[in-house]
């Protein structure tokens, strides 16, 4: 009943909102348009865009120290989350049965635990800093807290359901997954897709100027 609903109708609705919403957001960016840059470039923009998409995975050497916290916590969270989402055994099974029709080798249990620990520690540290650091307090919006909170709850309920013996816990997890998917396109969680565009735009502009950004 509850599980059937959150894994059935609600899941399809959430996935639809997610897909359509993300597409709509990306289309909105395209629709906003970009004026052609008439200045004479030093180097081509496109390779610079690609380069910057990858280069920004690490801060500039000079900025390592100021960015150390966000680097460590950010990577712990993001890599952890990535492993959890794509390689946790129940997720692989779900993807195989409900989405793609094929799966892949799931991560062993100890990798899952390690990933979950990294993800939780990273997310908690980042979230707490958002509440404590005057800078982050100043710039954070309600959306930041809802987005972080939803992600936290999804991870938390996911781990609660780790024992895989109670449908209720699985359903609870699925419920929050559905909510997260529905919330996703309307929120800052969109950065998961748009960061490529942002880095690309900046990288292209800077490459035209001959600066590797």
């Amino acid at each position, binding site marked *: 009943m509850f599980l059937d609903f959150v894994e059935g109708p609600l899941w399809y609705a959430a996935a639809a909102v997610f897909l359509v919403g993300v597409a709509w957001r990306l289309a909105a960016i395209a629709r906003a348009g970009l004026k052609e840059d008439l200045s004479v470039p030093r180097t081509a923009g496109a390779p610079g865009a690609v380069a910057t998409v990858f280069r920004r995975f690490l801060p500039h050497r000079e900025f390592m120290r100021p960015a150390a916290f966000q680097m460590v916590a950010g990577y712990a969270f993001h890599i952890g989350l990535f492993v959890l989402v794509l390689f946790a055994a129940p997720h692989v099974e779900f993807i195989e049965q409900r989405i793609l029709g094929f799966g892949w080798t799931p991560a062993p249990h100890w990798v899952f635990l390690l990933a979950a620990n990294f993800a939780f520690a990273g997310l908690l540290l980042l979230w707490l800093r958002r*509440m404590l650091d005057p800078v982050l307090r100043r710039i954070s919006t309600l959306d930041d807290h809802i987005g972080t909170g939803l992600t936290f709850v999804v991870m938390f309920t996911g781990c609660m*359901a780790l024992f895989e013996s*109670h449908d209720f816990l699985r359903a609870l997890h699925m419920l929050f997954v559905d909510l997260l998917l529905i919330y996703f396109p309307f929120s800052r969680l969109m950065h998961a897709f748009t960061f490529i565009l942002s880095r690309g735009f900046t990288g292209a502009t800077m490459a035209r100027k001959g600066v590797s950004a």
Partner: protein
Amino acid sequence: MGKKSPEAAGRRRRMMYRALALMLAAVLLLPLVPYAVAYVGGITNPNPGADLWRQVRQRETPPEVRTQVRGVDTGVLINARGESWRQFRMEQLIPWSGWFLGGMLVAIALFYLLRGRIRIDKGRSGILVQRFTVNQRLAHWFMAVVFTILGLTGLVLLYGRFVLIPLLGPEGFSVTAAACKEIHNLFGPIFPLAVLLILFYFVRGNGFRGVDFKWLAKGGGLLGGHASAGHFNMGQKLWFWGTLLFGLSLVVSGLILDFPVFGQGRPVMEWAHFSHGIAAVLFIGGAFAHSYIGTLGMEGALEAMTHGTVDANWAKEHHDLWYAQMEAEGKVGAVPGQEAPASSGSPETAGG
């Protein structure tokens, strides 16, 4: 030298055969003598297995044991310590910790009724002093969140059978307990990180000094008279070192319990559980007092951990030596980047 007759030779050979046969017979029959004696005399020897079973039962010197089944402790026939562990958990840990934690709450409630909220005597001055850095606060709240998650799930597992089964029913509680167990096991390995952060960011200023013992003698000012203190008073220092001590104990025993895949047997696990339970209960009891005095119990204390600043009058009343030092260094009132209520005409309409 007479020559040997063939008869003599034949006689000797026969004698040799007979002797051999006799010796063979003796060899074969002699071991039967005790049986024969026993049979005839009705002697009852003690069962040779008795000593063996005694050994197995009491495990003083465990006998050499082999089994086809691979696994932890599969070679142990009788685990005699299981019973003492059961006694500890069911008859000591659960009831005694219940009394301790309950007593702690009652004591705090009584303290609140008798002493009330500890106010800033002189009122707020409006002048702020930076007390904790962002990183210190981060370490504190990280510990607080992880501790709360672990503490709550741990208590559910400890008392749930007695408190929650009547409320949720066995099925309902099983769901709760399964979730709690997974969360407890999963957040466990994050706890060492929290302990390390606390150690790293708070170890400075937490060394014991002479003034701390005077503070203790005056009961932190509760027993009359003003008790001087530096950046941390004796209570806070004890709490800091307690955190490390209990934290270490919980981390070591917790990791042993959390990952039962390194061949640690039941004696190790039982020991780990013993120390895990005691440390956790004491830690949680301390946390009750700590949270009370940091929030409801004392005016002006919580903001030190939320905004990182305290009012100058609060500092004077509770940490006079530290305040004097801050004053000497010209750090009173200079709080960079603080969102003071009267922040220099900056735009406040943003956000949300």
